[in-house]
C-alpha cells in the first residue's frame, strides 16, 4: 500500500510540473487599414501562466523585443496601457537591425529565444529593412489576465518604394523576458491571435505622393537614424524661397506632397547639427587620409597626383582656404587644421570641420553622388517627378569626414579616381594600401580598456599590444557628477604627436596620437592612462567611464576598428 501511495504521489508531482501552462504574449491589429497612409494600431497583450492547479503565476518584469518592417511601416507613436503609478516603464528603439533567432528553438518559444539572445553575440545583425523595439515594464503589482501592455501606431508606407511585393511580413515578436518577483523565469509562448491584416488590397500611393530617401552610414551603421535628417525643397535653381520642407522617418524615407509632375526641383538635405555623435565624425583616420594627401598628392585639385580614392574626398578634406571648385587644393593647411581640431585648439582661421553644433552638409542624387565633371566632384540636388517616377534616392556626407564614417561612400564608378591618376610614384601613395578609404573591416585587437578603483583614485588604462599603429584615437565619456579628471599620462613613444581634447562641461575627453610622417608607431604596453578623482564615495567604477570611438590607423593607411573581448 505504501508503494502504491508513493507511486501516486510521484505521479502527482510529475503531473504538477508538466501541468503548468506558459504565459502568452499576443499582438494583433486594433483597426482595419486599406490604403497607403492609413494608420495601423497594434496592441500587445499579456496572458498569465498557470500552475497545474490552474492558479495564476504572476510576473513582476515584462520585457520583450519585437521588430517591424521599416520599409512598409513608419512608427509614429506608442502608448502605455497600464495605469499603475508604481510601474517603471522604458522603451528603446534601434533602427536597421533584424533578429537572427535560435534555429533550434521554435520562433514562438519566446523565453527560449530570450535565453539565446542573452548569451549570443550575433542575435542581432544590421538590416536596413527592419527596426527593433524593446518594451520593458516592471511593477510590484502584477498585470491582470489579458492586460494590454502597450499600443503602437504605424503609418502604412507605399510598397512601391520598397523591395517587397506585399504586406505579409510586417511585424513579429523576437523574445520575451517574463520574470517573477523572486527573479525566476516564466515560460512564454505566442498568443492565439494571428497577425493577419488583410492588406492584400493595399494600393500604391496617390499620384501626388513623392517619395524621397536619404542614404548615409549614420543610418546604415545605426549611429543615429533617418529621423536625424531633414529636407528642404526649392524650385530648381532657387535657394531663397523653399516650397516645402520636412523630416525623414527613422529609416530615412519621406513622403512629400504638393509637388507637380514634370517640374524640376532642387532638394538639400541636412543632418541635425545638435547630434552628439557628430563629435565622433572627424577622427585620426580622417587626419591620416588628409596628411597622406598633403604629403604625396594634393598638387592639383583635379585628381591628378592624388592619394584619394574618390573625387569627393577632396571636397570633404578641404577644411580651410580656397574651395576646390575655385582652384584650392589639399595642403598641410588642411591637415594641421584637422590636427588642431582633434587637439581641441581653436583656430583663428575660418574652417569647415563638422562637429556637434556646426555641420557642413553635402547632399545629392545617390546614383551620381560625387561624380567627376571636369576633374572635380559634383553632387546634383535636382529631381523631377513624373507620372511614372515618384521615388528619388539621395545621399549625404559631411565636410571633414573624409573616410565617410558618417556619410555615404560613393557607389558610382564615375566617382572613383582611376588608379592611373593616383600618385603611385609618391612616397605616400606607395605606403598607402589600396582602398585606404573607410572600410567596414574590423580587426580583433589585443586592446584592454579598463577602469579600476585604486588608492582612492579611478584609473582608466588603455592597454595595447597592437603593432604598427601610426595613429590611434579614443573618445571617452565619463560621469562628471562623480569624477573629476586629474591627469592624462601618455607613454606612446618619443616621436608621436599626442593629443587630448577635454570638454569638461560634457564629461568628454578625446585622446590619441598620430605620426604625420607615417613612420613612428604607438608604443605597446599602456600608452594611455587617465586618472580621475572621485567627488563622491565610490565602492567600484562600473559604468563610470564609457568609450565611444576606439580606432587606429596602420602604417599602410588602413583603418583599424577595434573589437574588444
Amino acid at each position: 500500500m505504501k508503494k502504491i501511495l508513493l507511486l501516486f504521489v510521484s505521479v502527482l508531482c510529475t503531473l504538477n510540473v508538466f501541468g503548468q501552462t506558459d504565459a502568452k504574449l499576443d499582438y494583433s491589429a486594433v483597426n482595419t487599414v486599406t490604403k497607403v497612409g492609413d494608420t495601423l494600431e497594434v496592441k500587445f497583450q499579456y496572458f498569465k501562466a498557470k500552475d497545474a492547479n490552474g492558479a495564476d503565476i504572476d510576473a513582476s518584469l515584462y520585457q520583450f523585443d519585437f521588430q517591424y518592417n521599416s520599409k512598409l511601416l513608419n512608427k509614429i507613436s506608442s502608448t502605455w496601457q497600464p495605469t499603475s503609478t508604481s510601474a517603471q516603464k522604458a522603451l528603446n528603439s534601434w533602427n536597421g537591425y533584424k533578429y537572427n533567432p535560435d534555429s533550434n528553438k521554435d520562433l514562438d518559444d519566446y523565453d527560449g529565444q530570450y535565453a539565446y539572445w542573452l548569451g549570443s553575440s550575433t542575435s542581432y545583425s544590421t538590416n536596413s529593412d527592419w527596426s527593433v523595439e524593446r518594451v520593458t515594464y516592471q511593477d510590484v503589482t502584477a498585470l491582470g489576465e489579458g492586460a494590454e501592455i502597450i499600443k503602437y501606431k504605424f503609418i502604412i508606407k507605399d510598397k512601391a518604394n520598397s523591395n517587397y511585393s506585399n504586406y505579409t511580413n510586417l511585424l513579429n515578436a523576437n523574445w520575451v523576458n517574463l520574470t517573477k518577483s523572486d527573479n525566476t523565469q516564466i515560460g512564454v509562448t505566442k498568443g492565439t491571435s494571428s497577425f493577419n491584416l488583410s492588406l492584400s488590397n493595399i494600393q500604391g500611393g496617390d499620384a501626388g505622393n513623392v517619395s524621397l530617401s536619404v542614404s548615409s552610414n549614420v543610418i546604415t551603421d545605426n549611429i543615429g537614424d533617418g529621423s536625424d535628417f531633414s529636407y528642404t525643397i526649392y524650385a530648381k535653381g532657387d535657394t531663397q524661397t523653399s516650397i516645402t520642407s520636412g523630416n525623414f522617418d527613422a529609416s530615412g524615407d519621406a513622403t512629400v506632397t504638393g509637388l507637380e509632375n514634370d517640374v524640376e526641383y532642387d532638394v538639400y538635405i541636412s543632418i541635425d547639427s545638435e547630434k552628439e555623435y557628430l563629435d565622433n565624425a572627424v577622427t585620426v583616420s580622417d587626419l591620416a587620409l588628409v596628411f597622406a594627401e598633403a604629403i604625396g598628392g594634393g598638387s592639383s585639385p583635379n585628381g591628378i597626383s592624388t592619394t584619394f580614392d574618390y573625387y569627393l574626398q577632396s571636397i570633404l578634406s578641404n577644411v580651410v582656404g580656397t574651395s576646390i571648385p575655385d582652384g584650392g587644393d589639399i595642403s598641410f593647411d588642411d591637415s594641421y587644421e584637422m590636427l588642431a581640431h582633434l587637439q581641441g585648439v581653436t583656430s583663428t582661421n575660418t574652417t569647415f570641420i563638422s562637429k556637434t553644433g556646426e555641420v557642413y552638409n553635402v547632399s545629392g542624387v545617390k546614383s551620381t553622388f560625387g561624380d567627376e565633371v571636369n576633374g572635380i566632384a559634383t553632387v546634383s540636388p535636382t529631381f523631377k517627378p513624373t507620372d511614372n517616377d515618384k521615388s528619388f534616392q539621395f545621399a549625404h556626407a559631411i565636410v571633414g569626414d573624409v573616410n565617410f564614417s558618417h556619410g555615404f561612400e560613393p557607389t558610382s564608378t564615375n566617382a572613383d579616381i582611376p588608379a592611373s591618376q593616383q600618385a603611385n610614384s609618391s612616397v605616400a601613395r606607395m605606403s598607402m594600401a589600396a582602398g585606404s578609404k573607410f572600410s567596414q573591416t574590423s580587426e580583433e585587437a589585443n586592446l584592454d580598456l579598463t577602469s579600476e578603483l585604486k588608492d582612492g583614485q579611478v584609473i582608466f588604462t588603455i592597454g595595447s599590444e597592437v603593432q604598427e599603429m601610426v595613429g590611434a584615437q579614443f573618445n571617452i565619456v565619463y560621469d562628471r557628477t562623480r569624477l573629476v579628471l586629474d591627469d592624462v599620462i601618455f607613454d606612446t613613444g618619443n616621436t608621436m604627436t599626442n593629443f587630448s581634447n577635454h570638454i569638461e562641461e560634457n564629461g568628454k575627453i578625446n585622446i590619441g596620437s598620430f605620426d604625420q610622417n607615417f613612420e613612428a608607431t604607438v608604443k605597446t604596453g599602456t600608452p594611455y592612462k587617465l586618472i580621475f578623482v572621485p567627488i563622491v564615495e565610490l565602492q567600484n567604477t562600473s559604468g563610470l567611464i564609457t568609450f565611444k570611438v576606439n580606432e587606429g590607423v596602420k602604417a599602410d593607411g588602413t583603418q583599424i576598428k577595434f573589437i574588444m573581448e
Partner: protein
Amino acid sequence: MKKVLLLLSVFLLIGCMDDDIISPIDDIVEVPESLEIADIQGLKVESTIVSDEVRMNIKLPYTGTYRVKIRDISKNLISQEKLDAKEGDNILKVYVSSLENNGYTLELTDDNHDIIGIASIVVNN
C-alpha cells in the same frame, strides 16, 4: 578579590586579541532579498530599469580579479571595470549617468573573460 582580578584578566585578554578574531561579522555581507543569488555564482541587478545608479550582486566562486562589462545592442564593449572581489556575495553598484538611454547587457567575467553571469539593463535617465 580573586574573582575581580580574574574578570579583569579576561577583559585584558579580549582587549589584546586581533580584531579579526573577535569580529568575523565584518566579512559577512548582508544581501538584500532583491539581490539574493541561489547559485554559487552569478550576477543580479536590483532593477532592470535603471536611472543614475543601481545596486548589483556579483557572487563569486573564488576571491580574485574579475571584470564587469557593459555591452550595447550589437554586444560591442562600451565600458569595463576590473576589480578585486572576494568569494561569495559582493554588493556593488553600476553607475549609468553617462550612458545614453538605451538597452544594455551587463556581463560578469573572470580575468580571462570567461562569463560568470549576464543581466539585461535598460537605462532610463
